[in-house]
């Protein structure tokens, strides 16, 4: 599909088109469409079971949607060799590519990285090693280089080590870099996961309930971190969140869904006033 520039002149980072997926006859997503601008903090909300995480899993290709497309803006340089456009635009140009059907592990190379609801950290590794996994796809040295510790592998390791330290400093966890991740407080684990996303030079970061399990002070800090990440790394942020204060506090725009269907889209104020959204959440309250 052609590269479309929206009315206010801002380019889009991600466009979900008519996404549908069912699990055993149950429609988890039903013809869902929405679009995220570049450098925007975008919130996806909805009552329990609305299908928010399913949207994430469809974007990152953990689930293959039954129908619909996920278009994502990718710099030409990041595309796999076969897809690179050499004739026009050169390496600087970027365009929308469809993510549907790509292998899960290839998504991060395109500049899209995610975190997980239940923090996925490797307890046996140190904090910095956990962060370094974020740079996995950038490593050029092969197994042979690494097995024999050839200069190439060592040089590369050093470069990314520095990069990881810098990212850890940015989130204030560099002082613990050599400690094991296992046994660290939850807040630190969340920060490791965030730091790890920064290692891949992301264009879009997807955060799955980043505030879950954090207290009020930590949630405040998180909001600040998310804003700073956008400023520093010039990337788009898409988050699914239950904590309404966080969403209303930091999001530029919000999309509300319910039972896999689009409900409303707008600024935090508009969403708060929207009766459909209120009803969807009220219904949930009564159920509880």
């Amino acid at each position: 599909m052609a590269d479309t520039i929206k009315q206010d002149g801002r380019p889009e980072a991600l466009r979900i088109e008519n996404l549908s997926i069912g699990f055993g006859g149950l429609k988890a997503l039903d013809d869902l469409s929405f679009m995220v601008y570049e450098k925007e903090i975008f919130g996806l909300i909805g009552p329990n079971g609305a299908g928010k995480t399913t949207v994430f899993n469809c974007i990152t290709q953990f689930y293959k949607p039954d129908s619909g497309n996920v278009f994502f803006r990718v710099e030409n340089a990041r595309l796999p060799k076969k897809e690179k456009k050499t004739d026009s635009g050169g390496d600087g140009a970027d365009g929308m590519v469809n993510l549907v059907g790509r292998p899960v592990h290839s998504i991060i190379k395109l500049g899209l990285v995610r975190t997980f609801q239940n923090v996925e950290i490797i307890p046996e590794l140190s904090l910095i090693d956990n962060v370094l996994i974020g740079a996995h796809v950038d490593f050029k040295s092969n197994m042979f280089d690494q097995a024999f510790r050839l200069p190439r592998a060592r040089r590369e390791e050093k470069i990314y080590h520095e990069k990881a330290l810098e990212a850890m400093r940015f989130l204030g966890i560099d002082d613990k870099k050599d400690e094991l991740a296992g046994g660290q407080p939850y807040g630190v684990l969340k920060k490791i996961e965030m730091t790890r996303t920064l290692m891949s030079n992301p264009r879009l970061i997807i955060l799955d309930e980043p505030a879950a399990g954090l207290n009020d002070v930590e949630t405040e800090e998180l909001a600040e971190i998310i804003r700073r990440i956008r400023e520093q790394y010039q990337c788009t942020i898409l988050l699914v969140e239950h904590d309404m204060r966080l969403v209303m506090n930091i999001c530029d725009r919000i999309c509300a869904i319910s039972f896999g269907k689009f409900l409303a889209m707008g600024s935090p104020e508009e969403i708060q006033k929207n009766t459909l959204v209120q009803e969807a959440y009220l219904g949930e309250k009564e159920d509880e």
Partner: protein
Amino acid sequence: MDMILQPFMRSLETGSVYALAALGIIIVWRTSLVMHFAQGSMGMFGATAVAFVFNRAGAPLWISVLAGVGVAVFLGFGVDFAIIRRLKRATAVGKEIITLGLIMVFLGLAPIIFGTDPMLLPRFIKSGDLNIGSAAISYNGILNIAIGVAVAAVLFLVLQKTKIGLAIRATASNESTARLMGIPTRSVTLFAWALAGVLGMLAGVMIAPSVTVTPTFMNTVQVSALFACVLGGFQTFYGPVIGAYIIAVASNFLKLYVSSVWGDQLMYVMILVFLLFRPNGLIGRTYMQKV
């Protein structure tokens, strides 16, 4: 002698043996999510017990088989009760490795308990052939085929029509939900392991007359049964049974018409190649992993 019908009938006989062993593997897999590598060696142990009672105590064959059923049920209960159900924390691989360890235990124990001399087991029906055209099959062969088909049929009926069958199927489809619905999943898995033991023992007793009863005499059966499950797919109970008969037929014909030495090996390679094209087996479906 008929060169098509004769080996075909023979194949049905070995197919029945493989089918029983495969059923044991699949029923454990579906209820406990454990790949039962020790199915063959547990069957060996049961069948050796039968041979022991028959040869050393001089009991009639049918009494020996009943004793074998007792041993097999006891082993099945024992393995589930003492080991498998206590492994709540172990991973699936951990449980598989346990069944691999059990192979060694049964293999080491059998000669200690039953003696190191190889034993023989007679056929149920001593002699007599049935002639179909130019092909001939022994009455015992017919009995073996009948046992295989009957056991499979009864098992499917039990699975589909009875309360126990419903409990097994519910456990197979989702263990924790089944438990919440009040299904005694522990009894179901206990039953499954015992049943697997009995099926393995039966398979052993059926194949024993054509070989000698040694600790390794069930190896081919075990490998074939595993392949039957791969070929038929792990998602249904009947897939592996179909797979077992296909493997028996393929193996016999390959041995007869291609190479008497390399027949089985050729078939193994063919199954691997088949996996390339139908990774989930004949009856298998792809499944989506929940993230």
